C-alpha cells in the first residue's frame, strides 16, 4: 500500500525495495487525456481509468464504479477525487476510498515517462 502511495505522488517513485513481479504497461501519449479529465483503457481484460488532473498529476483506478458500474473515466475530477457520472459517488483517487459508501476502488501506480503514460500491474 505505502509503496503505491509513494509512487503515485507527483508521478515519481522513490528508491524502495520491492519483490513481487510487476508489469509496466505503456498506455500511449499523456496528451490523449485532456487536462482535468479521465480516459478509459482496456489492458487485456482489466479496465483501467486514468485521470489527468489540472495540475498534471496522474491517477489510475479500476474503470467501473462498484455501485452500478458507472464509467469513472467520464466522471468529474478535481482535488484528488473523481465523482462518478451515474450517482455521484465520490472517490479519493490516491486511496480509491469512497468514505460515504464504505467501498474502495482498486488503484494502480501510474507515472509519466517521456510524454507517455505508464501504469504498473501486479
Amino acid at each position, binding site marked *: 500500500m505505502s*509503496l503505491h502511495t509513494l*509512487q503515485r505522488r507527483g508521478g515519481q517513485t522513490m528508491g*524502495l525495495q520491492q519483490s513481487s513481479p510487476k508489469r509496466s504497461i505503456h498506455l500511449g501519449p499523456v496528451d*490523449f487525456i485532456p487536462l482535468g479529465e479521465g*480516459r478509459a483503457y482496456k489492458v487485456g481484460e482489466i479496465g483501467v481509468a486514468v485521470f489527468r488532473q489540472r495540475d498534471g498529476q496522474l491517477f489510475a483506478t479500476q474503470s467501473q464504479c462498484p455501485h452500478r458500474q458507472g464509467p469513472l473515466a467520464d466522471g*468529474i475530477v478535481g482535488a484528488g477525487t473523481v*465523482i462518478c457520472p451515474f450517482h455521484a459517488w465520490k472517490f479519493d483517487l490516491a486511496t480509491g476510498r469512497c468514505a460515504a459508501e464504505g467501498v474502495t476502488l482498486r488503484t494502480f501506480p501510474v507515472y509519466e515517462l517521456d510524454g507517455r503514460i505508464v501504469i504498473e*500491474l501486479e
Partner: protein
Amino acid sequence: MSTADHERLVVIGNGMAGARVVEEILQRDAERFTITMFGAEPYGNYNRILLSNVLNGSQKIEETVLNPLAWYESNHITLHAGVKAMLIDRERRVVVGNARRRDAPPYGLDGHDPRGVAIEEPYDKIIVATGSRPFVPPLEGMGKPGTFLFRTLDDCEQIAAYAKGCRSAVVVGGGLLGLEAARGLLTHGVEVTVIEALPQLMAAQLDPESAALLKTTIERMGIHVLLAKSSSQVLGEERVTGIQFNDGTTLDTDMVVVSAGIRPITEIAKESGLAVERGIVCDDQLRTNDPDIFAVGECVQHRGVIYGLVDPIWQQAKTIADVLTGINPRATYLGSKLATKLKVMGVELASMGDPKAAHPDDEVVVYREPSRGVYKKMVIRDKQLINAILLGETDTAGVLTQMFMLETAVPQRRADLLFGTSTGAPILSVFDLPDQAQICNCNGVAKGKIKDAIMIGKCKSVSKVGVHTKAGTGCGSCKPLILQLLEVYAGEAQDDPTEHYYVPGVPLTKPELIAAVKAKSLKSVSAVFRELAGGKEDPGSKPGLASLLKSLWPHDYEDERDARFINDRVHANIQRDGTFSVVPRIYGGVTSAAELKRIAEVAEKYNVPMVKFTGGQRIDLLGIKKEDLPSVWKDLGIPSGHAYTKAFRTCKSCVGTDFCRYGLGDSIGLARKIERRFQGIESPHKMKLATAGCPRNCSEAYVKDLGAVAIEGEQWEVYIGGAAGSSVRKGDLLCTVNTHDEVLKYMGRFMQYYRENGKYLERSYGFVERLGIERLRDVLVEDTEGICTRLDAEIEAAVAAYKDPWLEAVQPVHASQFADPVPVAATGNQSHEVRS
C-alpha cells in the same frame, strides 16, 4: 486480523435480539470487539415476527432471513450455529457450550450431542440473549405425534407439513400469536378451533367488548372459538385424535398447536449465578448483577417487566451498544410503552397500553359500529392517551401510537384521533411514520437512517443529512420532511451556510458570486477557483460554475471541458450501460417523411437497440456508443435536441388551428418559433415548454416550465413554473398577450431572469414558488425594477451566441473527445526493481 488488542465479546443467543445488538455495536465501532455468537438453532438469524407468514404461505423461509451466514463471515463474527451455551464460568471467564443434535427438541435442557466436543470461549464481556420458550400449560399427552409448539422456523415447517394430512386442528391459546397461527392453519385447508382458558380473546390487548367483536369477526372467517375452556389432555394413541377439557367435554381434532405465551429462558443465567426472578434481572443499562454481563430481549426482566415485542428490544439493543462501545457510557433504557398490531389477514386491529388500566375518572371515548365490526376506544388521563383500541378500521393507528409513545397532549377534538381531521390535515406529521418508512423515494432512504444520521451522526442541517445518507439529494421534494425530522430529533435545524452558496466549493451566494465574477472578469472555472476559493478545486462545483459563467459571458466564456458533466462533453445523455442516447431537434414536434427516413436509416446503420418517442414529442435513439456519436450526428444532418443538458429542451405543441376543430390559436407556428429562438439556451435546470391551441391543454402547456395557451379573443396566456415530474404543479399565469412575438418576449424575459436568479439545479417551479408570481409579474410585466430592457438585451445576446454543439462532429474540441475505452495489450515489461 490480530485479536490481541480487541476485547472479546461473547453473545449467547443468535435470535433477533442477539443479532440486533451485534449490528448496533458494529455500526458504532466495527473494530472494538472480537465477537463470538452461540446459537442453538442451526441457522443464521431470522425474523421471527414473520413466522406466521411462513405458516400461511405468504412468505418463504428464505425471505425471513435477516442475517445469512455470509453476514457473520464478512463481519468477522465466529458463529457457533447449533451450539448451545451451557454455562458461564465466571471464575475462569469462559463460556462453555455444547453442540446439539440436529434432531434435539427446541428449548430442552438436554439434547446436546454426546459425541460433540464441549466448546469454550474466553470473554471480556457477555451479552445474554437467550430469548424465551413457549409456555406449555400442563397438558397430558403433549409431545405425541400431531402436537406442536408455534415458535421456531422448524415448528412452522413441521406444522405446515403435518397439516397436509389433517382435516381439523386445535390451537391452544387465544392470544396474538395463537390467532395468527389459527389464521395460518386456515390457509392449509383445515378446520381450526381456537381454545382460550380466559373468557375473552387477546386479554393483554383488548377490553371485553372489543374482544367479543373480534370473536365475531374471526368466526366469520371460518375459525371456531371456544372461550373459558381449560384443556387437560391430548387424546389418541399413536397420533392425535382429539382434546379433552377440564369440564369433561372433548373435541375431535387431528392436531394440536400450543401457543400460550412465552417464558424467558434463564437456565444458563441461573446456573451461572446471575440474579433471576421471572427473567434475568437487569438495571437501566441492561446489566445483570455481574458488571461484565449484559442481557437483552425476551429473557430480560427490566423494572419488573418482560417484553415480548421488537420495539422495546431494539431500544435495549441500542442502549447496550452505546454503553459497550463507549459512545455514551451513561446511556439508559427506562422501559417501553407497548403498542401492537394484529397481523392477521382480514382483521384490522391496533392496541396500545393496558386495556385494564382505566380509572373511574378517566375520560373514555368510544365509537361502536357492530354491523361493520368497527370499535374504537381511547382512554385519556391528564390530556394523555393511556390506552387505545382500534378494531375493524385502523387508519389513525399511526398517529395514536405516536401520541401514546411520545406522551404528547391529545388534540381538543378527540374525534380527529379516531377518524382523522375533516380537512385531511395531518394531526401529527413525520411522527406518524415508522422507522422503516421511506422518506427519500429517489435514493430509498428510510426514516430510521435519517434519524440515526441526526442522532448518532450528529447531522444538524438538511444538507449534512444529505451528505451522510443521500436523503434529499434526488428531486429534493422530501427536504421539508427532513427538516421536520431535524426539528424533532435535534431540537432545531441548523442553518448550514453552504446551503445558501451557489455551489458548495465557493463560499458566495449567487448574487455575490455574479458580482465578484464580473468585478474580477473571471471567465473560466479554474479562474473562479483560483480567485474566489483560495485555489482549491471542488469537482462537485464545476458544472454549476460552468453553467453560470456561460450565461454571464455568452461570447467570451473560456470553455474548460473538464468542468462539464459527461453529457455536456459529448452532447448526449449517458445511459445505465455507459452508452448514450441521441435526440435530434424536431422543432415544435413537427417532422417530415424525409427526416423520418434519415432517422430510420441511422437507426439501422448503427444497430440502435431502441428507437423511442419521448414525452416531449421527440425521437430518441438509445444505446449508441460514444465513439459513434459524431458519425451518427453527421448522418442525421439534424441539430442537437439538447435532451442531455440543463437548458431549453423542447417545445411541444398540439395541432392547433391547422387541423383541430377546437383550435383557437396557431400553436404549431408558435412552438416552432419558440424552439428556433431558444434552442440551446442554458439555465439553472432544464426547461420543457409547450404551446396549446386551446385550454383543453392537449400538449400539457399548463404543467410546463413555460407554457402558452390560446384563449378565446385571439389571445395567448403565458404560464410559468408548471411541472409534471416528481413534483406536479400547474403553472402560474404571468400575463395575457395578443401575438406570438409578445409570447416570445415574455418567455425570453422570464428565462433570462431565471438564468440570473435561479439556484443551480433549481427547476422553474421551485424558482416561481420561491419568488412568488406577484413579484415576478411586478418585475417582468410591470417592470418595477426597470430591468426589462436589459433582460431582453441579454437573452437576445444569448440567442445570437447559439451554436449547434453537434457541429463538433466535424471539429472535435479534442482528439479523444469521443474515445471509447482504448484497448492495450496486457503484456508489459516484467521488472522486479522500481524505477527511479
